[in-house]
């Protein structure tokens, strides 16, 4: 049996078995769940090789499965994050209802993402895409909250995107008589001009929805915050990357061949920039950590889209690197929120405070992820940001670099809000009983945190597979030109040597940490957060002095003009208008037999009157 079949069948079978046998006992269910994620993962990395395709026929369409270098890169994200999140999920979801359903959906979405990566043809791509959509939809509505609003919004947007894609697919089929992606790419040059524009546009709509690009992002905040955190980690970390994956293929393989196609690229890049800014500003305004991270995901995906839109080798490197990094740190942050929500019962930043001493490990992983998110060296987030800026400057996008930089600086605001809201601030009696999350949740988080550090020092570990993927897409090798294992170069040959910098940072930090610790060690005393210099007042046990309401009010006041208009309201306006129209069409069916008879008579009279116009020979 082909290994690819086996992997997908294992996933699918695992999903079904977990659901069915999970009813017997929770332990069997958990074991089945983890093993049906881990075993195919191991099989995949051990046995599947790039370039080995299998193909078969369904309904006259030739389908082909295999893995490419680019897809292999994304499979690191999917399977790596998937395995960690699944281990986490078992501990995090313990005791919840309907777990079999949750687990099997989890496996299904991993399967569908792997399917997308394995698809070498458009139809199976679309099939797995849709499976991914509905399995993630079921996750969004899993908790039964805001189902009709958030869930339907998510699905409608996904469906619009998917159907745009489907339209492109059938048009491609009619033009090339083949559904293989390679055939599309090879024959794209011979399409007519209108098709050259139409097909990439339609495909891009599909991918833009999943990667939450402005103005198709409105589903994302609700959907991300509504699904269980163990899954949102996958949702934001890996699932949105499928949009990125598709977008890269389209932008590189198709859009580059459109005459004047750079306008499309510019538009995409600018939309990405606007997405980044909008997402960041809205993230700053959020009080719920999940919403905050959701908007932040939108913003981060905006950077990635900018990179893809620019399309120079350095920009592609940065986009892909940021995609990997985003999967790591945002996946981790959602896991952190999940852990906190599990321990405290809320994810509201204004309610929880001072968990740093209660959940130190969670804090450390959150800290690493936040530093990576903010793009501060020496963690991995910086590498992607750096390459993005350099590529933007190198490709003459001066205003865009300002836009991106603004968004990236404003990201410090919500980064800090996240850390402060949960971990810092006053330690409240209300949360004094909180314990650290179980080891099964902490270990995946710590692994991801360490990954951010390692990739910050040795980005070559990820840049190498990215380079392979880019070469496959037709770029020249960038190794040595733009990066080495631990160094980065820009178009002009300027460099960042990461290793000495990281060592310097560590050395300075250790020196001063030692200085602060040793100097007057005996006389350094820990005092509680109630012991603060607040005009001599002693806060009572129940008094919460933590400043968390209207956290960035001055900033928000300053940016108010930008945030007055919400795309969301336009969409709901359109939606309501459409429903009103639909209500009108409903009234055609009056429920009165005479009316219906009248319709019939009018029908035939009209046809007879215009028969020559209609059927004239």
């Amino acid at each position, binding site marked *: 049996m082909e290994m690819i079949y086996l992997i997908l069948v294992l996933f699918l079978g695992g999903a079904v078995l977990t659901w069915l046998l999970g009813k017997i006992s929770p332990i069997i269910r958990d074991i089945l769940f983890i093993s049906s994620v881990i075993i195919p993962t191991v099989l995949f990395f051990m046995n599947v090789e790039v370039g080995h395709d299998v193909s078969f026929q369904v309904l006259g369409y030739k389908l082909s499965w295999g893995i490419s270098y680019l897809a292999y890169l994304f499979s690191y994200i999917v399977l790596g994050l998937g395995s960690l999140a699944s281990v986490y999920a078992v501990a995090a979801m313990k005791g919840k209802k309907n777990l079999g359903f949750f687990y099997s959906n989890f496996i299904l979405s991993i399967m569908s993402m792997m399917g997308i990566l394995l698809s070498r043809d458009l139809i199976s791509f679309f099939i797995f895409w849709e499976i991914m959509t509905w399995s993630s939809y079921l996750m969004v509505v899993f908790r039964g909250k805001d189902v009709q609003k958030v869930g339907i919004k998510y699905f409608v947007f996904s469906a619009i995107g998917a159907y745009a894609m489907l339209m492109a697919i059938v048009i491609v089929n009619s033009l090339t008589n083949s559904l293989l992606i390679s055939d599309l790419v090879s024959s794209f040059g011979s399409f007519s001009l209108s098709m050259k524009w139409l097909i990439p546009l339609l495909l891009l709509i599909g991918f833009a929805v999943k990667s939450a690009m402005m103005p198709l992002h409105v589903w994302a905040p609700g959907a991300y915050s509504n699904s269980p955190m163990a899954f949102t980690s996958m949702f934001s970390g890996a699932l949105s990357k499928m949009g990125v994956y598709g977008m890269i293929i389209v932008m590189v393989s198709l859009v580059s061949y459109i005459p004047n196609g750079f306008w499309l690229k510019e538009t995409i890049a600018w939309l990405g920039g606007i997405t980044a800014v909008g997402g960041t500003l809205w993230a700053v305004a959020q009080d719920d950590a999940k919403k905050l991270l959701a908007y932040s995901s939108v913003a981060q995906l905006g950077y990635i889209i900018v990179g893809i839109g620019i399309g120079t080798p350095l920009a592609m490197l940065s986009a892909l690197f940021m995609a990997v990094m985003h999967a790591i740190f945002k996946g981790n942050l959602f896991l952190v929120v999940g852990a906190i929500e599990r321990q405290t019962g809320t994810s509201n930043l204004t309610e929880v405070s001072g968990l740093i001493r209660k959940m130190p490990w969670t804090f450390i992983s959150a800290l690493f992820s936040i530093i990576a998110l903010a793009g501060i060296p020496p963690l991995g987030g910086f590498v992607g940001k750096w390459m993005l800026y350099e590529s933007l400057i190198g490709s003459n996008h001066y205003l865009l670099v300002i836009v991106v930089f603004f968004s990236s600086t404003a990201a410090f605001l919500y980064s800090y809000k996240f850390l402060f809201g949960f971990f810092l601030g006053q330690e409240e009696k209300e949360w004094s009983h909180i314990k650290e999350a179980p080891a099964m949740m902490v270990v995946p988080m710590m692994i991801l945190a360490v990954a951010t550090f390692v990739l910050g020092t040795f980005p070559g570990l990820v840049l190498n597979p990215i380079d392979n993927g880019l070469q496959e897409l037709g770029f020249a090798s960038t190794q040595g030109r733009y990066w080495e294992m631990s160094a980065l170069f820009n178009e002009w040959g300027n460099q960042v040597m990461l290793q000495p910098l990281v060592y310097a940072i560590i050395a300075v930090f250790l020196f001063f940490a030692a200085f602060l610790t040793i100097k007057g060690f005996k*006389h350094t*005393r820990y*005092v*509680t957060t*109630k*012991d603060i*210099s607040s*005009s*001599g*007042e*002693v806060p*009572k046990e129940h008094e919460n002095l933590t400043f968390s309401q209207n956290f960035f009010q001055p900033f928000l006041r300053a940016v108010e003009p930008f945030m007055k208009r919400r795309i969301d309201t336009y969409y709901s306006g359109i939606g309501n208008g459409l429903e009103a129209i639909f209500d009108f069409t409903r009234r055609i069916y009056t429920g009165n037999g005479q009316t219906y008879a009248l319709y019939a008579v009018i029908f035939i009279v009209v046809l007879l009157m215009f028969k020559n116009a209609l059927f004239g020979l």
Partner: protein
Amino acid sequence: MINDKNSQKIVDILQNWARKHSLFVLAYGTGCGAIEIPPTMTSRYDAERFGIRGAATPRQADVLLITGYLTTKTLKRVIRVYEQMQDPKYVIGFGSCTINGGMYYDSYNTIKVLDKYLPVDVYINGCMPRPESVISGIVKLQSLIAEGKANGAAKYKENLDWYRANQKKIIPNWVMPEYNW
């Protein structure tokens, strides 16, 4: 060699000199005396030339300047602020209200003698003392520091029980963190 008595003395002298010339003053504006601090700090009298500088919080302050009468309610806060300051620290009682109650000698809610509750290093008398006397008080404190005699904090630590008893006598509802240096 470093730990022997003489070198410690030299270090002490140096440190006392630095302390003397860098006084971060936390002016606890309790009474009418608060209005005397701005002229002391600004152009006319310019206390900054002695290295005196306003500190915003007790954590950074060296000198606690109590500018006037203390109600029992305020005393509780002042004690709190004093205990939050980092060693070495000094207290200046400012105005006759801190010395003997001044015009509030029969008030039902102001304390009359500050040094029963906090270790005062220097008193500045007057009602109110003018900036000149404030500066002279501070200079007195500086000379005490240089001589190593401004050891109110040490006294407070030694006689904590006595101070506590006095404090608790008028503040029956004593809810404060322990002072355990």
